[in-house]
């Protein structure tokens, strides 16, 4: 019995470590998984998820929307950014495709009171008919600091593996 318990503990530890090293965030309702960069953390509140590094100087925000008019979500996003910042200059949303999921992305620049900012947003239709919004707003140097991590989050978004 003791050996069986030890075996179960070892299996648990093995799979716990595996799951930790993979750094995968799963959103079952949307049917997607995302890669959390090594050393990053996440918080999840209802349909809002944030990924952030240890220094907490950047946030990658992920929002799961109910299937809706994508254009209205983009319009509302642009409207919010315009209300929040000045000199907002964004590209027109461009069609995208990531791991078979259709999407749109746009990027651009804006200013807050202190600095110039870079903006990057992507919206993707998930396998379970939700819209996943993934966005980052940060100053140029912060963007540069986490460029690889941001890319790994974007590239790591894919349908949930069965």
């Amino acid at each position, binding site marked *: 019995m003791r050996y069986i318990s030890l075996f179960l503990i070892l299996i648990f530890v093995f799979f716990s470590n595996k799951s930790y090293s993979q750094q995968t965030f799963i959103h079952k309702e949307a049917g997607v998984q995302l890669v959390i960069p090594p050393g990053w953390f996440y918080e999840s509140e209802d349909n809002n998820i944030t990924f952030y590094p240890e220094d*907490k100087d950047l*946030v990658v925000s992920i929002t799961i929307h109910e299937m809706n008019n994508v254009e209205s979500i983009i319009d509302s996003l642009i409207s919010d950014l315009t209300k*929040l910042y000045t000199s907002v200059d964004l590209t027109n949303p461009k069609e995208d495709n990531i791991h078979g999921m259709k999407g749109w992305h746009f990027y651009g620049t804006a200013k807050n009171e202190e600095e110039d900012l870079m903006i990057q947003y992507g919206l993707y239709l998930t396998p379970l008919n939700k819209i996943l919004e993934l966005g980052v707003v940060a100053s140029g140097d912060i963007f540069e600091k986490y460029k690889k991590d941001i890319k790994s989050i974007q590239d790591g978004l894919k349908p949930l593996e069965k």
Partner: protein
Amino acid sequence: MQNIDWVKEFPASITVCDIEGVILYMNDIAIEVFKDDGGVSLIGTNLLECHPEPSRTKLKNMLKSGMTNTYSTLKNDKKKIIHQAPWFINNEYKGFVEIAFEVPFEIPTFIR
């Protein structure tokens, strides 16, 4: 009433900051809630420093406008109400108070 410190152990997280965002006060629950971020040592630090964009600009606008902000959050099957409102002394705007507390999923509404 002035000498009764009812806020310290009040069962809600209460944080007070000045108009620049510098934390002036945290009650016991707030210190516990934010223990991973520094707990009591957060007093004297600026809230803006620990809020990256876009929250930073939102917070800055809120401090500037003095407009109340209320919302609910859902985390780990717990629902919380977050109420952020300006505080005053002799009608002079002095900063913001954030009160956060857990509520049941269904809250009775009495029409009166």
